[in-house]
């Protein structure tokens, strides 16, 4: 049988970096092939070369036995290659169906296309409303749009870059069924992931990349996670240690019956949210994106003020009326979900980005920036948190996702906060960096700080949290002790089935 896709000796160099060095692999029709590797290993570059978004310096590509001479995204689509980007290629200012129309050939009929989108999205358990504007969608919902867009094309080769990061466990299972069904129909799938368990469940074969080089190939179903991880990281994986903790007597962060109707027609109204985070513990909030996390976070961080008195308190004092800056002065630190643009200013160098929140540590004197102190602070974060970069003068957007996240988390931890709120701490971050960040969060809590993690990754929450809540349709569940609950219970609460037996998954998400 001819392979669906064959790569021969692909090389791609950037100034100072070799992104891909002599990479060869082949994928058979109907095969689900994993590409494993840490962030910065060159996986995304390789996928973009396959899709034609960037050009390889050397090497050749053969598709269904025919060499591809001149490549480009439009050629890919003509051949039947579809790709779900890690950083989505969606346009914010137009609706879901208009976004999809852009990559569908044929008659421009939005009504008919909207119906098809709805059908396909329901069929594959990825519900989306085709007429919503993308700017109002959460990360998880955007990913659903991307996947549905590809599925509409009946692809021959589907490339998925970290597709499950923001899906509920039930949705992941559903997606895997979809992908298996697609593979059974003859579609080849290239599956990029850091999640070894997923690769083992789903993929027939795997190619492991490290620093642009292939470090091994494997049959994931016959390999152990430890073998795969070692090929990927080049060393044994660090384990997180969750030591027992002693918690403070009073909560550091307290939310008392927070009810907030949403003005935005697409927003979620918060309903009677009760939450306490004590010093010395890590509390997690699980939930599928778009269930009120964004609204709750903006009330907690101070990006949106809350009018009611004594509803949001920080260390016993009402902070509902204080803006984000004043809350930070009282010991709150916050790491948002979006690294580029909200957590860091993309084109500015790390020293400037360190100063964004670190300026409270004496980096400004008589309205003048103490450049030396800012540089030292950035250098200290880079050193302590093991950030791979050429130095504090690198631009934030030149770092890989995992390294930038380590830098941002490091910046907030170095402020010595009383309360740290962090949203999606390891979204799109590789195994090594994720383990490092998780351990850093646990360690912070063990020094007496209160840590609140909002995440859609259940494994992560179960790994680091002492207690868990679940958010669904603007309501927060009661507190669940990690030791007395399990993934199934939390998964059911996430889809609202348990508390609200009449609703189904489609309505809940």
């Amino acid at each position: 049988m001819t392979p669906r896709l064959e790569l021969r000796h692909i090389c791609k160099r950037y100034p100072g970096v070799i992104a891909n060095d002599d990479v060869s692999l082949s994928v058979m029709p109907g095969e689900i092939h994993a590409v494993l590797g840490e962030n910065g290993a060159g996986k995304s570059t390789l996928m973009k070369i396959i899709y034609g978004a960037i050009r390889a310096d050397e090497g050749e590509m053969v598709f269904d036995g025919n060499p591809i001479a001149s490549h480009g995204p439009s050629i890919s689509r003509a051949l039947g290659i579809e790709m779900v980007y890690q950083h989505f290629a969606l346009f914010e200012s137009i609706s879901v169906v208009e976004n999809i129309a852009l990559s569908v050939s044929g008659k421009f009929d939005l009504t008919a296309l909207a119906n098809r989108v709805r059908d396909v999205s329901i069929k594959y358990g990825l519900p989306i409303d085709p007429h919503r504007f993308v700017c109002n969608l959460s990360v998880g919902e955007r990913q659903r749009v991307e996947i549905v867009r590809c599925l509409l094309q009946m692809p021959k080769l589907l490339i998925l870059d970290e597709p499950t990061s923001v899906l509920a466990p039930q949705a992941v299972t559903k997606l895997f069924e979809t992908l298996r069904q697609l593979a059974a129909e003859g579609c080849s799938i290239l599956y990029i992931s850091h999640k070894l368990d997923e690769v083992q469940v789903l993929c027939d074969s795997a190619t492991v990349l490290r620093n642009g080089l292939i470090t091994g190939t494997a049959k994931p179903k016959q390999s152990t996670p430890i073998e795969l991880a070692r090929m990927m990281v080049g060393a044994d994986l660090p384990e997180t240690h969750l030591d027992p903790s002693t918690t403070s007597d009073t909560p550091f962060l307290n939310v008392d019956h927070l009810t907030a109707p949403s003005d935005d027609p697409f927003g979620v109204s918060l309903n009677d949210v009760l939450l306490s985070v004590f010093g010395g513990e890590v509390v997690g909030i699980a939930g599928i994106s778009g269930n009120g996390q964004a609204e709750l976070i903006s009330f907690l961080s101070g990006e949106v003020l809350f009018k009611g008195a004594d509803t949001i308190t920080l260390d016993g004092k009402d902070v509902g009326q204080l803006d984000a800056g004043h809350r930070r002065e009282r010991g709150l630190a916050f790491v948002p979900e979006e690294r580029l643009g909200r957590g860091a200013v993309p084109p500015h160098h790390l020293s400037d980005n360190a100063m964004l929140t670190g300026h409270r540590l004496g980096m400004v004197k008589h309205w003048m920036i103490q450049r030396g102190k800012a540089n030292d602070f950035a250098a200290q974060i880079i050193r302590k948190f093991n950030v791979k970069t050429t130095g504090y003068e690198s631009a934030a957007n030149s770092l890989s996702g995992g390294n930038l996240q380590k830098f941002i988390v490091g910046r907030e931890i170095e402020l010595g906060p009383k309360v740290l709120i962090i949203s999606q701490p390891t979204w799109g971050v590789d195994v090594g960096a994720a383990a490092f960040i998780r351990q850093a969060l646990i360690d912070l809590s063990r020094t007496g700080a209160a840590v609140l993690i909002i995440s859609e990754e259940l494994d992560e929450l179960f790994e680091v949290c002492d207690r868990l809540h679940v958010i669904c349709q603007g309501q927060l569940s009661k507190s669940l002790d990690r030791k007395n609950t399990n993934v199934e219970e939390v998964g059911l609460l996430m889809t609202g089935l348990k508390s609200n037996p009449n609703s189904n998954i489609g309505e809940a998400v």
Partner: protein
Amino acid sequence: MDLFIAIFTGTIIAATPLIFAALGELVVEKSGVLNLGIEGMMLVGAAVGVWVSYAGLPMPLAIMSAAAAGALASLLFGVLALTFLTNQYAAGLSLAIFGTGVSAFIGKGFGSAPLDALIPLEIPFLTEIPVIGPLFFNYDPLVYFSFIMFGLISWFLYKTKAGLVVRTIGESPESSHAIGYPVIKIRYLAVMFGGAMAGLGGAYLSLAYTPLWVENMTAGKGWISLALVVFAAWRPARVLFGAWLFGSMTIFQLQGQALGISLPSEVLSSLPYIATIVVLVIISRNWQFLALNFPTSLAKPFRPAE
């Protein structure tokens, strides 16, 4: 009633050059390109229109030449900004200055010889209806054409796939390129369309409105078109509204001067500019509306990834 008809028709006519230029610029900006050279392209169009007309060629040819000259002038900006990725502000400003100079050069020998002006169309029956006729059916062909262009552009941008592509390129050329659209080519076409529309706006001034060649005759109408697009939040219907507002203020201040309102004429002359901007700023304060319509990549140079 006669006064009302005079103000109404005067408004429509005074707004026409702005409608052409601003709608053209709207398409350019929707594709993420900022061409500040409208004033220059309008002047080139105005001068070329008069030139062709003086050469004894028929009016439609003069108008088409003006549009072609505007498009050609815009190419100068296009090559600088799109191919050589120079700063769009600088490239646009130099086109504005260059166009002013070139138009003065073309028009040097024109003097003030009489010109065959574009005259109102006589539409059988319709023009003769009392009140309605003079209000709506007594304009020259370019006025009607400006309305057709408004309809076409609105339809193109919001109902066709090509229009959708223009808008998405304006939001993110990187993503548009990633899904396989020829960003640079489409931006060139948008820039040339904007140039042609500015040329038409200029030709309207010199062939119908004045009708005469006067050096620098646009008197800032290119700049006000630019402001119209921004303050209209990149929506064609608001551009139309803004242009009429400007037109009505122009007529109002002329009438005001005639009626001897005791304000310095300088204050009255500045009224259309001030009133238009103030009103459009007030109606465009809706943050979400702006966010949805603003072309995010505006004036940012784009080079396709290799």
